[in-house]
């Protein structure tokens, strides 16, 4: 099975007024077609940076890719300039983010935006180079276009309208006909997120990058949206890269989980192996932190210490200062991601 996405030795640095922060340190991973890969970690671990950097959404003024490659269908996305990458972004590689309202245009109705997304896809299929601001994230400041879509009149063409309704129904939006005519701010958080998913999927993307898509949603809405993403994944043959801080969410929907810490990959395993037999002490520490029982029967064991300063990371393993099983070698040498049995890998001297 050829990998859809193959990231090799990828490092990203941010320059700040107080020093250079190594946000990603030698990250390598593979994503297969039709797979849901969850990248899990706490704040500052680099998971969002990873998601954004794949399609070149890092702020250009402060972030630099210092090494490595991101091969999408064997093409190195890192080497592409900003114009070329826009051909992939929002089309073959779709994104959804935490705040759906900032990704949708407030001045166009929902139906019009989905229709425009469909038009983009059709033009693309015919071989035109297209991109519009619609499917780009608000982080981007550039507005150069290769080809401009015709301005939408207030009425959606009938043939498109049916497809728009189909997509709305696909994402389980009741009253699709009414929602067509609404503006994004009129909808609830859960609905706008579903509209985002509809727009992303209308591109028939090979890869969907979802950065904390349900964090801002209520628990019941989150369940609906995650369930939907999982169902659609198989229907539309898309792989999903799900970035989340929530281990429990990852356990529910992911096929494979990568745990990140301080810019590095600590562990990479299929979801069942990771949860039943976590190898890296950070992973087991994280699992022990999540409350699953009652206070009189369960002992929550927090991980001692705090995340390291990424401007001045410790020598050796970045987790060593907090690791209950740290050995001497851990404080002097950096561990590397080594393959283990069962198709998993871990970056820890306990297993080298």
């Amino acid at each position, binding site marked *: 099975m050829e990998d859809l996405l193959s990231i090799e030795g990828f490092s990203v640095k941010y320059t700040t007024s107080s*020093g250079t922060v190594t946000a990603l340190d030698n990250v390598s991973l593979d994503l297969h077609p039709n797979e849901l890969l969850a990248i899990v970690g706490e704040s500052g671990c680099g998971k969002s940076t990873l998601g954004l950097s794949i399609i070149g959404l890092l702020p250009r003024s402060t972030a630099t890719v210092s090494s490595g490659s991101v091969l999408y269908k064997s093409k190195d996305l890192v080497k592409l300039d900003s114009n070329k990458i826009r051909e992939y972004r929002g089309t073959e590689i779709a994104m959804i983010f935490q705040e759906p309202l900032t990704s949708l245009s407030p001045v166009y109705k929902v139906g019009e935006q989905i229709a425009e997304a469909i038009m983009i896809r059709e033009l693309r299929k015919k071989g035109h180079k297209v991109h519009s601001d619609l499917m780009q994230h608000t982080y981007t400041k550039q507005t150069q276009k290769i080809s401009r879509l015709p301005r939408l009149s207030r009425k959606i063409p009938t043939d498109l309208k049916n497809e728009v309704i189909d997509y709305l129904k696909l994402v389980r939006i009741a009253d699709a006909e009414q929602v067509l005519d609404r503006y994004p701010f009129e909808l609830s958080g859960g609905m706008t997120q579903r509209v985002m998913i509809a727009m992303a999927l209308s591109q028939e993307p090979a890869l969907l990058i979802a950065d904390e898509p349900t964090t801002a949603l209520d628990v019941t809405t989150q369940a609906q949206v995650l369930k939907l993403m999982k169902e659609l994944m198989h229907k539309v043959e898309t792989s999903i890269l799900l970035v989340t801080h929530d281990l429990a969410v990852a356990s529910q929907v992911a096929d494979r989980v990568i745990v990140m810490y301080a810019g590095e990959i600590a562990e990479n395993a299929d979801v069942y192996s990771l949860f039943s037999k976590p190898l890296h002490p950070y992973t087991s520490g994280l699992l022990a932190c999540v409350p699953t029982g009652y206070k009189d029967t369960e002992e929550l064991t927090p991980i001692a210490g705090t995340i390291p300063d990424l401007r001045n990371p410790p020598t050796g393993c970045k987790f060593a200062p907090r690791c209950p099983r740290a050995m001497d070698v851990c404080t002097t040498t950096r561990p590397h991601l080594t393959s283990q049995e069962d198709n998993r890998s871990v970056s820890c001297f306990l297993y080298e």
Partner: protein
Amino acid sequence: MKQNAQGTSDPTPFDRVLTMFKKTPESIVGFFVVVLFILTGIIVTIFDLLGIRVTPYNPIQQNVGVALSGPSWDHLFGCDFLGRDVFSRVIASVPNDVAVSFSVVFVAIIVGALLGSLAGFKGGLLDELLMRFTDVIFSLPVLVIAMVIAVALGPGLTHMMIAMIVIWWPPYARMARGESLRVAHQNFIEAAKFAGQRTLGILFKHVLPNISITMLVYATLDVGTVILVYAGLSYLGLSVRPPLPDLGEMISNSQDYLITAPWLPIIPGIVIAVIVIGFSVLGDGIRDALEAR
């Protein structure tokens, strides 16, 4: 240097000033102009009170023999049509500007901060009333008010100060209101209520300290504007009357000599410009330095 959460050091205020100078080099010039301006004002006033003359010549002493003479080593800025040394007059008029600009801005900040933060924090009817009152005052043109006061009370420095104070505070009130709206939603304000604080206590202990920086930055830039407007009033003859020196008035009284003795109207104008630009540039530097954080 203090330790911060990451364990690295936090810059002291001194470091921050140096950073500002590095980031916006022109602010160094502004800084020196402002310091010179304030020091001159203070020194001249003190020595004046002690009865000692600090300027090379007596600013109001006429000496018809050197009337309309150009800049020379003897008279750095030349002499006016009555033979008075322009340099001495310029130095002697600095205290006026220092007094007016600082007192107007000072009162404006205080009045504006109090009214604005109260309006923003309490909201509701009080907010509406205070803001509409602010709007009314804001719509009054400074010139008209100055002239009315000049007619009613006569011209003069203090009267012009009053005229400007009366209408200068609305922008500060607006700013304070906006800032306190931002602060009012913060949890520590709620926590203060749990600590038994009432409105006034919260305003003084929590709201005002947190909005002061924005206002002070604006104030720095504003001082220059006050000086400029005051120069205009003085030019119109509403402030200090001759023979006492005042920059604006010096311009208006010598504008007839623009061709024959151009230094007479131009030099006071340049002095005003330098002071205003000095404040402006310093204010820019402060704002840039703070924004970066």
